[in-house]
């Protein structure tokens, strides 16, 4: 089961990439736990999570080919 992970702003700098592909994550909690382990600074960063362009709170199942986006605080305008 594949998941595309998109990273924006400072989060892309922390991971060194704007996009990651992850395998075998059944839900967002599992996915984030792997990411936090791999990138400890990410665990301390402020961000919200969107699955398939919808903001979520709490844990969320990830169907095949989901797109998970990690969004740091917005600063447009």
């Amino acid at each position, binding site marked *: 089961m594949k998941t595309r992970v998109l990273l924006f*702003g400072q989060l892309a700098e922390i991971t060194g990439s704007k996009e990651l592909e992850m395998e075998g994550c059944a839900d967002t909690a599992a996915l984030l736990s792997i990411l936090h382990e791999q990138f400890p600074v990410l665990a301390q960063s402020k961000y919200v999570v*969107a699955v398939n362009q919808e903001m979520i709170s709490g844990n969320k199942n990830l169907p095949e080919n989901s797109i998970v*986006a990690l*969004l740091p605080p*917005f*600063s*447009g*305008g």
Partner: protein
Amino acid sequence: MKEVKLKNIFVQGAIAASFIADSIQKHSSKTGIGGHSIFLGQVRADEIKGKKVTAIEYTSYEEMALPKMHEIREAIFEKYELTCMHVYHSLGKVQAGEICLFVFTSAPHRKAAIEACAELVERIKAELPVWGAELFEDNTHQWKLNQ
């Protein structure tokens, strides 16, 4: 998948004063309009720890930003008696002193135009997934924080 045709609000680089003028001029045929309210965001040359901001580089998650803008637009049209509404936001690099956000509302009466414009600006800043990196003279940068 929504089948709504989403209006693109993003423009590459700064928003030119001539573009704003054209936009104003186009409304002269809409003779039901009594007032326009315009907000322009301009990049500030802030000095942070002795280093000057020379530009802001904007990025967005457009696949989320455009549906969100659509939702905001509908809500504002629902709430205020407006004739029209236009929003443009820069992506990429915008130099200090240049315009990065153009919000334009028009209505038969001034109150609706003014209030809708102010509310739009707040919602755009709070709800659109857009990020600004403040670039310094020495090629370092920091991520902008909205107040």
